[in-house]
């Protein structure tokens, strides 16, 4: 199966959506405190985890993310009172949907990280990077377009199996 060893070691690409009030500030704290963590995480700063439209997560996967991390304030601490609960509700449904679409659960993660928890940013980013590294790259079949050929999945699989 895994004989098709890639020459370059696989480095997971993880897109992180962090709320500006807690988790992004925590990531800042981690940086200021010179904590080292996996450079595989690309942070997108949003006003609130409640702003994370499931379309953002799907678009991240579509455009090459191997994992998506959402970070928000702890329950009760949301700057907008309820935003992180909205995030949690969507996350649960999205997770169930992605599971049925063949995307492993470890590729999508939601964490509450307060502004004081720089060390948690470090730990979560490192953990997730290692989990996704073990899963390997997320290989979505390309979205077809006129002229793109008929069987993208088969080509992909055939290419991998050789």
């Amino acid at each position, binding site marked *: 199966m895994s004989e098709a060893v890639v020459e370059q070691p696989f480095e997971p690409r993880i897109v992180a959506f962090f709320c500006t009030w807690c988790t992004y500030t925590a990531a800042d704290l981690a940086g200021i405190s010179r904590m080292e963590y996996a450079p595989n995480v690309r942070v997108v700063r949003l006003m609130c985890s409640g702003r994370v439209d499931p379309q953002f997560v799907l678009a991240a*996967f579509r455009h090459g993310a191997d994992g998506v991390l959402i970070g928000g304030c702890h*329950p009760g601490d949301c700057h907008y009172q309820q935003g992180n609960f909205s995030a949690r*509700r969507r996350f649960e449904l999205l997770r169930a*949907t992605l599971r049925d679409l*063949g995307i*492993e659960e470890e590729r999508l993660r939601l964490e509450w990280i307060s502004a004081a928890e720089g060390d948690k940013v470090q730990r979560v980013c490192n953990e997730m990077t290692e989990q996704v590294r073990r899963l390997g790259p997320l290989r979505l079949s390309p979205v077809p377009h006129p002229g793109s050929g008929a069987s993208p999945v088969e080509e992909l699989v055939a290419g*991998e199996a050789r």
Partner: protein
Amino acid sequence: MKPKVAFYWCASCGGCEEAVVDLGEDILAVVEAVDIAFWPVALDFKRADVEALADGELAASFINGAIRTSEQQEMAELLRRKSGTVVAFGSCAWLGGVPGLANLYSREEIFERVYREAPSVANDEGTMPEEETDVPQGRLTLPAFFDSVRTLDQVIDVDYYLPGCPPPGHLIRAAVMALIEGKLPEKGAVLAPDVALCSECPRLATKPEKPLVKGFKRPHEVVADPELCLLAQGLICLGPATRAGCGAACIGGNMPCTGCMGPTSRVVDYGAKALSAIASLIDSTDEEEIAALAGEIVDPVGTFYRYSLPASLLHRRVALARQGGGSE
């Protein structure tokens, strides 16, 4: 000379054809205005008749159904060449439709199920369809069955979209009339109102400011109140995420909207938006309870992507078993 039009079906159920027939006497006005040059379900023209037309000779082709086989792709490409305007007719042509849910499975899994495992199958010899079979009389061929279901615009350039499963009669009439009168909107438009279904729902007045529920019900589990907003009753009605234009026909039948009219123009991925709309109903801030309530939704993909999986950002299920380190 009257403009020529064609109707064609690909991976579909025939309901879209029915919708054309259901125009009833109005179809006479259509026939009055155009020549139907090709319509396999109703008229005896053959592929050769289409091939004999000059490129662009058809004013318009109305193509329903998704693309699953090589024959459908060839016909779509042929009609594209012969037509000035191509209209993706119905949910399947636009978004993949119900046949698009087959993108949850591989071709092998589908063949295994359909030709071997299904309880109604008697196939002791294990015969499977082959694209080419040699028999004493010669070689028989079948169209190729592709790995994935595609939307029409993933195969050919499409000018307009008529949503619905099937498209409502008044939208079909409006589209045909706009075509005849040359009053079509800009290319790529969906020929239906660009607002959510709730806006034309007769139960809108009973929709709470913020509907919240402590549990989801499926239509067969309850007798819904015929006056009250279905969301407020815990039924998964996709009206908030779905385009208007059907007159809330299903809700008129006391059934929740399943989303056949697809998304409005601001949405990239219909299922993601439908999922968001339903998630917002969950009346809890407790993480375990939220997870339990979300778990009540049976078959989330079939619920949120019932008509749009091939058009979604992911397009199809990820082939997990074939990935190194996959968990299944």
